[in-house]
C-alpha cells in the first residue's frame, strides 16, 4: 500500500541535503563563481563533522553532553567546508585559475578526503563492517519536537524533522531575501553579472566573491553533515553520499538561481530521487536505474523550457565561470 504521508516525509529528508547544497551553490554562482566542487565540499563537510563527532564520542566515553555533541561536529563541519571554499577562492579569484578545472579537482579531492579519513576512522574504531556508527551523536542531532507524533499526519509531514531540516529552509529563505532585497544582495548580483561594472561602481569584486564562495561552501557543507547524522542515522560508509552533490548543482539550474523556489523544488527532487523504490519494477535492476535518472531528466526539461522562453532574468549570471582582472586589455 502506498503511504503518502510517509513518502512525503522521506522525500523531505532526501531533499534537505540537496537544499543545503543548492542554496550554497546559488549564493556562490551569484558572485560569478561556478563552483563545481560542491559535491567535494559536501563530502568534506560530512567527513569533518564525522571526525569531530568520533573524537568527542571517544573522549566522552558514553556520557555525551547533548549541546557539545551537536556543537562540535557542527563547527568542525563548518570549518572543513570553509577550508574548501577558501581553496577554491584563492585559486580562482586571487590566482585566476580556470573555475571548471578547479571545481572538478576539488570534487575529486573532497571525495578522496572523505574516503581516506573514513577508512582511517574505521580502522581506529576496529569495526567489523566497513562503516562507523555514531548513533549517540546522531540521536542528539535527530531530536525533534516531542509532540509531533501526537498530531497525526500533520505532525508527520510538517513537524517531525530535526532542527537542521528547519535550518535549511530558513537559510534558503534568508539567502533569497538577502539577494533580492538588500544592498549586499544587489552588489553581489552585480558582481556576478558584470564584475567590471561593479568594480567601476566602487564594489570590491574580490571580497564579494570570497565571501559568497566561502559562505556558500559552509552552507553546502551542512548538507553533508545532515546526511550523515540525520538521514543515515550517524552511519558513515565510504561513497555513501553518492551523487547528491551533482543533484544539488542540477537543482540550482532547476530553480533558475532562486533559493526560495529551491525549498519546494528540493523536496520534489527528493521525491523523484526515491521514486524508484515505490514504482514496482520487479527484480529488474536496469529499470530501477532508469528511474533514478528522473531528476536529471526534469532538469534537462527545465533547461529547454527556460531557454525557449528566453527571459533575461532566467539566465545564469552573465560572468558565471569567468575570472575577473581589472587591468586586462
Amino acid at each position, binding site marked *: 500500500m502506498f503511504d503518502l504521508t510517509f513518502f512525503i516525509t522521506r522525500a523531505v529528508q532526501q531533499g534537505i541535503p540537496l537544499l543545503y547544497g543548492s542554496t550554497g551553490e546559488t549564493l556562490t554562482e551569484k558572485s560569478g563563481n561556478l563552483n563545481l566542487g560542491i559535491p567535494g565540499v559536501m563530502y568534506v563537510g560530512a567527513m569533518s563533522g564525522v571526525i569531530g563527532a568520533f573524537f568527542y564520542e571517544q573522549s566522552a566515553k558514553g556520557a555525551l553532553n547533548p549541546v557539545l555533541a551537536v556543537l562540535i561536529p557542527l563547527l568542525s563541519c563548518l570549518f572543513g567546508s570553509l577550508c574548501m571554499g577558501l581553496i577554491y577562492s584563492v585559486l580562482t579569484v586571487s590566482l585566476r585559475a580556470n573555475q571548471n578545472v578547479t571545481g572538478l579537482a576539488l570534487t575529486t579531492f573532497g571525495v578522496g578526503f572523505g574516503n581516506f579519513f573514513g577508512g582511517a576512522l574505521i580502522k581506529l574504531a576496529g569495526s567489523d563492517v566497513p562503516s562507523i556508527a555514531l548513533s549517540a551523536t546522531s540521536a542528539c542531532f535527530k531530536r525533534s519536537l516531542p509532540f509531533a507524533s501526537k498530531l497525526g499526519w500533520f505532525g508527520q509531514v510538517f513537524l517531525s524533522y530535526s532542527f537542521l531540516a528547519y535550518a535549511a529552509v530558513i537559510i534558503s529563505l534568508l539567502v533569497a531575501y538577502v539577494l533580492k*532585497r*538588500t*544592498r549586499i544582495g*544587489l*552588489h553581489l*548580483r*552585480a558582481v556576478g*553579472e*558584470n564584475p*567590471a*561594472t*561593479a*568594480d*567601476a*561602481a*566602487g*564594489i570590491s569584486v574580490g571580497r564579494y566573491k570570497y565571501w559568497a564562495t566561502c559562505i556558500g561552501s559552509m552552507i553546502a557543507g551542512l548538507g553533508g553533515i545532515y546526511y550523515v547524522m540525520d538521514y543515515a542515522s550517524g552511519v558513515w560508509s565510504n561513497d555513501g553520499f553518492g551523487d547528491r552533490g551533482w543533484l544539488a548543482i542540477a537543482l540550482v539550474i532547476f530553480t533558475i538561481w532562486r533559493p526560495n523556489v529551491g525549498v519546494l523544488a528540493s523536496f520534489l527532487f527528493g521525491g523523484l530521487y526515491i521514486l524508484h523504490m515505490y514504482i514496482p519494477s520487479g527484480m529488474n535492476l536496469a529499470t530501477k536505474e532508469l528511474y533514478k535518472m528522473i531528476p536529471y531528466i526534469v532538469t534537462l526539461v527545465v533547461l529547454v523550457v527556460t531557454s525557449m522562453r*528566453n527571459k*533575461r*532574468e532566467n*539566465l545564469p549570471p*552573465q560572468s558565471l565561470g569567468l575570472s575577473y582582472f*581589472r*587591468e586586462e*586589455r
Partner: protein
Amino acid sequence: MEKVAAVKMRDITKSFGSVKANDGVWLDIYKGEILALLGENGSGKTTLMNMLAGIYFPDEGKILVDDREVVIRSPKDAFDLGIGMIHQHFKLVDVLSAAENIILGLEGKLDLKAAKEKIRAICDAYGFEVDPDQKIYDMSVSQKQTVEIVKVLYRGADILILDEPTAVLTPQETDKLFAVLRNMRDDGKAIVIITHKMHEVEELSDRVAVLRHGQFVGDMLTKDTDAQEMTNMMVGHPVVLNIERPEPKDPKPRIRVEGLTVRSVDGILKLDDVSFTANSGEILGVAGISGSGQKELLEAIAGLQPVEKGSISYLEEDGTPEELIGKDPLSIAAMGVSLSFVPEDRLGMGLVGNMDLADNMMLRSFRRRKGFFTDRKSPHDLAERVVSDLEVVTPGIATPVRRLSGGNVQKVLVGREIAAAPTVLLTAYAVRGLDINSSYTIYDLINKQKAAGVAVIYVGEDLDVLLELSDRILVLCGGKVSGIVDGRRTSKREVGLMMTKLGGGRG
C-alpha cells in the same frame, strides 16, 4: 573671470608591459569649462582618464584635486573626490533596472523609493528622460548613456569625463546630449570629452588638449584654433583633411535588390520590402541608427542571411542578371562580392585573433588550391604587401592579429578584402573607433576601389563622413528604406530626420 582648476595632473606616467601608454603628461581641467581631449588611437587618452577614474593606477606622477594632492586607488576614491567617468563601453548591469544601476555601489540601507525620487529630481534639473524602473536590456543606446550620466550626477560628481559619448548616437540625440552638457557646464561642473570628431570639438568644447604617443603636446582655446591645426598637432605632421569624391565613371547597375524582406531567428522583422540598385564605380552609403537592418542587408547580399521574400540580382557587365538568393556564400564570394564587416569588438568577424597575419590572409584563399596541402606562400606575400601598402604597424607577419591595435586590425581586414579584387565591396563600420589619420587611409582605399569600377556599399556611423564620401545615400529606418538621397545635395539634418522617421517625417 579667472578659471579655477578642478584637477591638475602632473608628470603622469603609466606603462603596460613595455609600452608606455602615458609619458610625463601634464593636464589641467577647469571648472565651468568643457575640455576636449584629442589624440590618435593608442595615444593614451582613455588610459589617462582611467587613472582619474580609479580604473588604473599611475606608475609615476601626482594628481591634485582642488589643489590638494590625492591618491585615487579605486573608482570609489574617484567618486568621493567628485570624479565620474562615462566609459565608451557602458558599465551597466543588463538585468537590473535603471534605478538599481544608479545606486550600485553606494552604502546604506537599500531604499529604492527614495532613490527614484532623487533620480527624478536630477532628470528634471538637467532635462533627462529616464524611467527608473526600466531594465537596461530594454533600453536603446542613448537611453543607456543617459542612465550613465544620471548615475554619475547622482553621486554628486563635479568632474565628468565622457569617453567618445557620441560614437553611438544619432545627430538628434547628440544635439540633446550637448545641450545637457552645456547646462552642466553653466552649473559650474568640469567636463572632459574624448572624441575623434572634429566638428564636435569645434561645436561643443571651450578648450582642447592634445596627446600624441602618450605625451602631452599642448592645449589651446577652441575658438583660437581649427580642425586643420588640431589634426596636425595630433598626427605630428600636416595632414590633408579632405575626402575626395570623384565623379563616378561610367556607372552601370551592378546589384539590384527588390522587395527584400528578412526576419531574424526570433521572428523579428529586420528588413521590410527593401529595394535599391548599387552601381559600379559608385559609393552607395547606407545610413541608419545602429540596428536598423544594416547588418542584415549586407549579410543577405553576401549569402549569410536567410531571406524571407524578395530578390537580389547580380548584373554582369552586359546586363544579364543572376539571382544571388539561394547561392551559398562561397559561390557568391567567387563572383566577386566581398564583405568586410567590422563589428564592435573588431575581431568578431572575419579575422581570428590568435592567428597571425599570414594565416588570416589564408582564411580567404585556402580553398582555391586543390590537394591535401595548403599553399602558404601566396598568403604570406599578400600579408607583406598589405603591411607595406597600408602602413600596418606590426612587429612582423607572424604576430597574432589580437596583439595589433584596433586601427591596424582594421587595415588588415579591409586590405585582405580589397586584395581579393572584388567587383562589389560591402563594408560596414570600416573606420569604427579609428583615429582621423587611419580613417583617411581607409577612405582613400575605398575611393581607389571606386575608381577601379567596383560597386561599393558603405555602411557608416559618422554622418559627416557619409555625406562627404558617398555618391548616393540609402537611409534605413527600422528595416525599411526611408529614402535614397544624392550625397552631393542632401544635408545632415535631412538624413538625420530620415533615420528616425520614415521619409524624414514629410511623407
